[in-house]
């Protein structure tokens, strides 16, 4: 309560009952300060849990080994570990039942299953990354991999010749053009869906949601038959960007719409009650408040298309030449480079493909990290940049004479 009137006008009158505070002073001076005191451990791993899990795991291992190696004539590593896991869960339940009641046993078994699911997910992802890195590091260790192209080398050229430069240029240009097309269109559609509403908006939303499920190869076929066959355009990175936009727009739109809906309605009403038009409210209040989330929407859209292969193969063709011009002539992208490299029965080509895969993975990771950093906050949260801006304004305002005659 005091904080609201803690203003420098005048302090609140002292409370009559000072005993309470005197007592607190006494306590804080006599006892050790809070920072030094040991914290009570809550939710830690108990020794009992460790014993139970370890004994169930070892017991299951011994039993399954006995069955597999001595009793039943079956073999196979995967089968072995699957059987081991099933036996482990049963044993864990049995061991736990010696000290716990039925509900606690269920709790522990479900805990074990869920933890396993999480670990399987993480290890699968780690496996993909590590495997790609191990297979591709030969290519990555040569710097020519990043700034040369395959124009003058065959697929059997050594790793110290040629590289993915053309593919990086292609990916960069295609993603950039897709963003230029998809971001304004996607966010404008989201604004329409969340701010205008009405019956037509509902139809549009259904269409947009259906678009998220359109396979990219179909989008590629559509652009191919329309632009290249019907209209007679040549294959180009631009055509690929159009196909990629078909996938990117619905992702941007649906995410942005969710974000715009999270903007409290009170802010819209506050703005309208000041006599603004709806457009002024959207531009000056709704969009700025939702900005971090909108950045996330854009980055999720980019992450969705950056690894697409099939539409690029269909409409941008594939080339070893370096082509800076996205509007004329075929271009290659990183995923397409991976695809073509993998089809060669040559260790060097496959190594290069894995190298390109690592670069692609890194790009996706960078995009997701950016999305988390810029947009991982609730709407209305002030970013560090905004806080700096506020601080700057505050200094500017307080240095000018505040008091008016």
């Amino acid at each position, binding site marked *: 309560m005091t904080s609201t009137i803690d203003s*420098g006008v005048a302090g609140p009158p002292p409370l009559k009952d000072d005993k309470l505070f005197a007592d607190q002073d006494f306590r804080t001076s006599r006892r050790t300060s809070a920072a030094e005191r040991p914290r009570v451990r809550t939710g830690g791993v108990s020794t009992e849990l460790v014993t139970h899990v370890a004994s169930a795991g070892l017991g299951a291992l011994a039993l399954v080994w006995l069955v597999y190696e001595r009793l039943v004539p079956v073999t196979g590593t995967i089968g072995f570990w699957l059987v081991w896991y099933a036996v482990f869960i049963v044993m864990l339940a049995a061991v736990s039942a010696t000290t716990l009641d039925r509900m606690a046993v269920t709790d522990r078994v479900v805990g074990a299953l869920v933890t396993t699911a999480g670990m399987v997910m993480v290890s699968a992802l780690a496996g993909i990354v590590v495997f790609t890195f191990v297979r591709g590091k030969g290519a990555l260790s040569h710097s020519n991999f990043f700034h040369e192209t395959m124009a003058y080398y065959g697929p059997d050229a050594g790793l110290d010749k040629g590289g993915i430069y053309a593919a990086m240029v292609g990916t960069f240009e295609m993603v950039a053009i897709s963003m230029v097309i998809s971001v304004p269109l996607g966010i404008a559609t989201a604004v329409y869906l969340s701010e205008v509403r009405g019956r037509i908006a509902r139809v549009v939303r259904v269409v947009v949601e259906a678009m998220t499920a359109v396979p990219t190869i179909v989008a590629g076929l559509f652009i191919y038959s329309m632009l290249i066959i019907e209209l007679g355009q040549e294959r180009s990175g631009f055509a690929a960007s159009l196909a990629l936009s078909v996938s990117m727009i619905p992702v941007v739109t649906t995410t942005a719409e969710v974000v715009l809906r999270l903007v409290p309605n009170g802010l819209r009403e506050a703005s309208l*009650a*000041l006599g603004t038009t709806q457009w002024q409210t959207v531009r000056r209040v709704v969009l700025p*408040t939702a900005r971090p989330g909108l950045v996330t929407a854009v980055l999720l859209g980019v992450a969705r298309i950056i690894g697409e292969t099939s539409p690029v193969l269909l409409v941008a063709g594939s080339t070893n030449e370096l082509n800076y011009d996205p509007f004329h002539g075929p271009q290659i992208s990183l995923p397409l480079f991976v695809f073509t490299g993998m089809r060669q029965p040559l260790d060097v080509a496959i190594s290069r493909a894995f190298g390109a895969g690592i670069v692609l993975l890194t790009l996706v990771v960078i995009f997701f990290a950016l999305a988390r950093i810029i947009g991982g906050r609730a709407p209305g949260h002030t970013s560090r940049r905004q806080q700096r801006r*506020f601080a700057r304004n505050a200094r500017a305002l307080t240095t000018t004479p505040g008091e008016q005659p």
Partner: protein
Amino acid sequence: MTTDTASDETRVDLDIDATTTIPQLTAGAPATLVAREVSAWFGNHQVLDNVDLTMAAGQVTALIGPSGCGKSTFLRILNRMHELVPGASLAGEILLDGQDIYDLDRRPIESRRRIGMVFQKANPFPTMSVHDNVLAGLRLTGRKTPGKNGAAELVERSLRSAGLWEEVKARLGTPGSSLSGGQQQRLCIARALAVRPDVLLMDEPCSALDPTSTRRVEETIRSIAGEVTVVIVTHNMQQAQRVSDNCAFFLAAEGQPGYIVEQGPTGELFENPRDERTSDYVNGRFG
């Protein structure tokens, strides 16, 4: 009851604020608002029936009554916020200095610029500083603030009128959402006052505030009355008595539209109600 005891303790510093308020904030004179035979619907459900009420210029009119009797709906009709709810409709007319704000030739935004509103939940713009929040009404509508000093002057005057200046003058650049709940609500009042409205509508502005902040908002209302016509919805009988000159008591039977049972000077309505239901309500026997 807690409101009274807590606010007594803080009266000392509140009075300082009240005396430093710079008069004549609004450019034009406060306007009289007249509601004539106003009825309202959400879809097919009627929520207000034939409400007639005159809100005198420069006075504070309190709308009281139990929940769900259409007070807030009536308030939102007064500056055309009601029509923003899908399916909402109304009948009757609202005269602002004799002109119907629902006239087809008048755009809603013109009426809303002259009739400001403060909401139940404080809603400062989170992307703007305290300073920018006060100026939001001008900046959002694309109007120029009169020079650099003019803006500073307007910010100070509005914040002083809302009784917030002393507390925030050292941190005008911090985000509006960094203030305490009571300060945020007074910031919203300052924001509404900065566009110099003729009428200020307040929809239970203190329902989410602690007694001290409530007291300060009430001080603010008293100090701006005279410069601007105030219409306030409140559930708090004592608050209605403390701040308002006139009072209107709304009531609605179960499932029926709300209507005004009794209206008149606040003192009369509380001391000497003509209707038995009013007497029961203001004395806390129901609602």
